[in-house]
């Protein structure tokens, strides 16, 4: 019964989303307050329906209802309960439901937290989001219904892909989807502004916290995916330039550009059409990512769907959404206007440079991702574009970007002076050079790319320190406390600099791991040792252990540093009988300055194994940097002016309402 209820709820949600997509929109055009007033309750009902449908599916999973086809293909009785719940989004149908649920969450959040928006704007925004919900619900009901029954009911399910049976996988997809779908908010704001023909600094201020929120989720989602690849795929890489990764990285690049462009639009009322275009582009790229990942054009752990109807549907949806919004843009953008002028050297120009570089970087990823697919689709043969391409392209593209990142925050809006900037930043530049030399002295030669990486990371840190110093320095003899001056720094500024610091941490991590990692694949017999520097790894054999739904060969490797014991690691080779698959479970001793990473390769003659023994210096800084970036975003999004505005306008609305 419950699955049928879930299915029925989805149909109801489709109806509600159709109402949400049409009536408020028409109401806004015809000035019908009663039709516009439908937007908020419809959004709430839509959310409730989709959430209940999601609960229905989760119940089917937790209750082992294998009469549901999707449950039978993605779960198993011996699967632990928390993974049975996570298995809800372990396959195609369920992840689409999760996607739709996230969209409903964002819709209802906009309805709830943007109470200060004018009714017409709100009606249009929610209507656009209603259309998006409609599209995804229709997609699910037409091609990928998660509640389809399976007759006859099997006694047990086929089990969740063992790769996904991991705590990281429980939170990675929801985070990533929150990010992907969150970009639909900026998209809807942009489309609503195009329809209304009204786009100004206030619009940018409304849009900014939402965009930043989506960007935070996207950042964390990507970092989690990367961390998962690092410890779960068993070969110690953290980014593979896999098309699926690229699909999430492209929206991130454009969303980052959008955040910066929105800053110009808010502060200087400039870059307006460009901002709108970026908002459309960012969401279009998340849709493209969905298409790539879900349509089966790509082959990877993410590509569940091989039903061509699904690919066609998403492709059609993609064409409609992107085509319609770009057509609207071409038609209405001239009305939006270009905005205020600025000098050749100003913060605006520097941010323009940032935008150009980010968009070009995104274009480079797009080329490397789509070209092989296009060639294949046209029957012109199979090629692949590997990591060397992306590595070659990204260093020269990101170096100027990082360089600008050090200057931009210190440059004045409208017009900046080169001598002034140079004299303020000379200490930062000097400190960067000294710190780089010091690091090389401490760690040894690191190659030219490594030097560039270090310089850039320390340059950002130096620039942030300069900014902080200037803001905390007592000005004009007025003696105020340091704490007082610190409190005067707006959260948006502090958040921006914190996020920039995250970039520096990230670059340090990447540079040091790329230049200092040591990887050894060695054949080890019980009792054998491998030495890396002062570290001695001793292999003392393998024994069989049993997990809840797998059997594993568990190795024991103890590590000593200059004779002192450091840790004993237990890497595993797991066999999952339900799916007949083998999985490598690496064992990692994480540390601030280095990770020790061991995993079992394969057994060879006489109790010996091929073992991977890796030392990865500063690798955790990569994800630490992402986390700092996300925290910076959080701080910036919580800036006072976004909230004060809310309260004041809300009060104004109430007073007007009570006066009337």
């Amino acid at each position: 019964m419950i699955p049928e209820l879930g299915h029925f709820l989805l149909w109801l949600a489709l109806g509600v989303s159709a109402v949400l997509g049409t009536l408020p929109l028409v109401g806004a055009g015809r000035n019908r307050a009663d039709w516009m007033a439908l937007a908020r309750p419809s959004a709430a009902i839509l959310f409730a329906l989709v959430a209940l449908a999601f609960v229905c599916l989760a119940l089917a999973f937790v209750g082992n209802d294998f009469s549901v086809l999707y449950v039978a293909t993605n779960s198993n009785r011996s699967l632990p309960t928390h993974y049975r719940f996570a298995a809800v989004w372990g396959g195609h149908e369920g992840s689409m439901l999760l996607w739709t649920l996230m969209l409903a969450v964002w819709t209802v959040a906009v309805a709830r937290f943007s109470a200060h928006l004018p009714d017409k704007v709100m009606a249009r925004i929610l209507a656009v989001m209603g259309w998006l919900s409609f599209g995804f619900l229709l997609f699910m009901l037409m091609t990928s219904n998660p509640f389809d029954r399976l007759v006859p009911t099997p006694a047990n399910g086929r089990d969740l892909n063992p790769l996904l049976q991991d705590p990281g996988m429980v939170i990675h997809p929801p985070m990533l989807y929150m990010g992907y779908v969150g970009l639909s908010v900026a998209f809807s704001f942009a489309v609503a502004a195009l329809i209304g023909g009204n786009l100004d600094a206030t619009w940018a201020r409304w849009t900014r916290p939402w965009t930043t929120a989506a960007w935070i989720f996207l950042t964390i989602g990507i970092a989690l995916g990367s961390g998962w690849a690092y410890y779960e795929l068993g070969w110690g890489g953290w980014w593979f330039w896999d098309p699926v990764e690229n699909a999430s990285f492209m929206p991130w690049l454009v969303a980052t550009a959008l955040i910066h462009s929105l800053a110009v639009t808010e502060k200087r009322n400039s870059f307006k059409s460009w901002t709108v275009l970026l908002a459309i582009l960012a969401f279009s790229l998340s849709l493209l990512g969905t298409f790539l990942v879900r349509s089966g054009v790509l082959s990877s752990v993410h590509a569940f769907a091989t039903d061509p109807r699904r690919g066609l549907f998403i492709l059609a949806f993609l064409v409609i959404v992107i085509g319609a919004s770009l057509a609207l843009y071409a038609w209405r953008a001239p009305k939006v206007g270009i905005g205020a002028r600025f000098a050749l050297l100003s913060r605006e120009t520097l941010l323009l440079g940032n935008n150009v570089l980010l968009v070009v970087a995104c274009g480079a990823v797009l080329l490397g991702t789509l070209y092989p697919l296009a060639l294949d689709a046209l029957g012109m043969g199979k090629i692949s574009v590997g990591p060397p391409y992306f590595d070659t392209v990204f260093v020269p593209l990101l170096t100027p970007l990082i360089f600008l990142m050090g200057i931009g925050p210190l440059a004045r809006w409208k017009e900046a002076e080169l001598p002034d900037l140079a004299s303020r930043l000379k200490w930062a530049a000097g400190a960067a050079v000294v710190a780089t030399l010091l690091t090389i002295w401490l760690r040894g030669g690191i190659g030219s790319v490594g030097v560039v990486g270090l310089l850039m990371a320390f340059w950002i840190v130096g620039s942030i320190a300069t900014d902080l110093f200037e803001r905390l320095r007592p000005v004009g003899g007025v003696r105020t406390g340091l704490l007082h001056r610190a409190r005067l720094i707006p959260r948006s500024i502090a958040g921006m600099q914190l996020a920039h610091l995250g970039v520096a941490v990230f670059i340090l991590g990447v540079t040091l791991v790329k230049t200092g990692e040591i990887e050894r694949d060695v054949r080890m017999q019980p009792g054998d040792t491998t030495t890396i520097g002062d570290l001695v790894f001793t292999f003392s054999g393998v024994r069989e252990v049993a997990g809840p739904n797998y059997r594993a060969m568990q190795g024991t490797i103890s590590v000593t540093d200059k004779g002192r014991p450091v840790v004993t690691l237990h890497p595993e080779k797991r066999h999952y009988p339900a799916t007949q698959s083998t999985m490598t479970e690496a064992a990692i001793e994480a540390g601030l300055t280095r990770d020790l990473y061991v995993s079992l390769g394969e057994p060879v003659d006489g109790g010996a194994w091929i073992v991977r023994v890796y030392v990865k210096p500063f690798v955790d800084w990569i994800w630490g940097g992402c986390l700092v970036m996300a925290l910076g975003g959080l701080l910036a999004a919580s800036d006072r002016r976004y909230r004060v505005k809310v309260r004041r306008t809300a009060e104004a609305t109430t007073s007007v309402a009570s006066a009337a």
Partner: protein
Amino acid sequence: MKPRHKRLAIVGGVVAAVGAAAALVLNAFQSNLVFFYSPSQIAAHEAPTARTFRLGGMVVEGTVKRDGTRVNFVVTDTAQSIPVRYEGILPDLFKEGKGVVAQGQLQDGVFVAREVLAKHDENYMPPEAAEALKRAQKGNPKLAETLSAEPIRK
């Protein structure tokens, strides 16, 4: 500077930057494209000798020989076979009689793989491997054309 000149300078700067970036990207793209060849194509001497490419096909049963960390095996597309040498740990889903994709270079008739690609699903045949078998089964005389018609010229 007049506002018009200023705008011109900004537009010019952006165009120049994008142009330079595009040149960089396309150049890197050209030199890092990895083409795919089947064992039949390699047997017909169509594969390059000093360039990295991908090889796809099936691992012939009984050919996997381990020697310490070095592995030797034979990949076939049913028409032709080629010996492959690899140093390191094979992915979990590498099995005799199953599809495989390897990336590396040809050295004295042996394909020296630098990478044997991990795939995530045991039912799944890598597209390159499937392609190699399909071409060989068709006995398609054009099989070489698909890619070698467009050699990379620098």
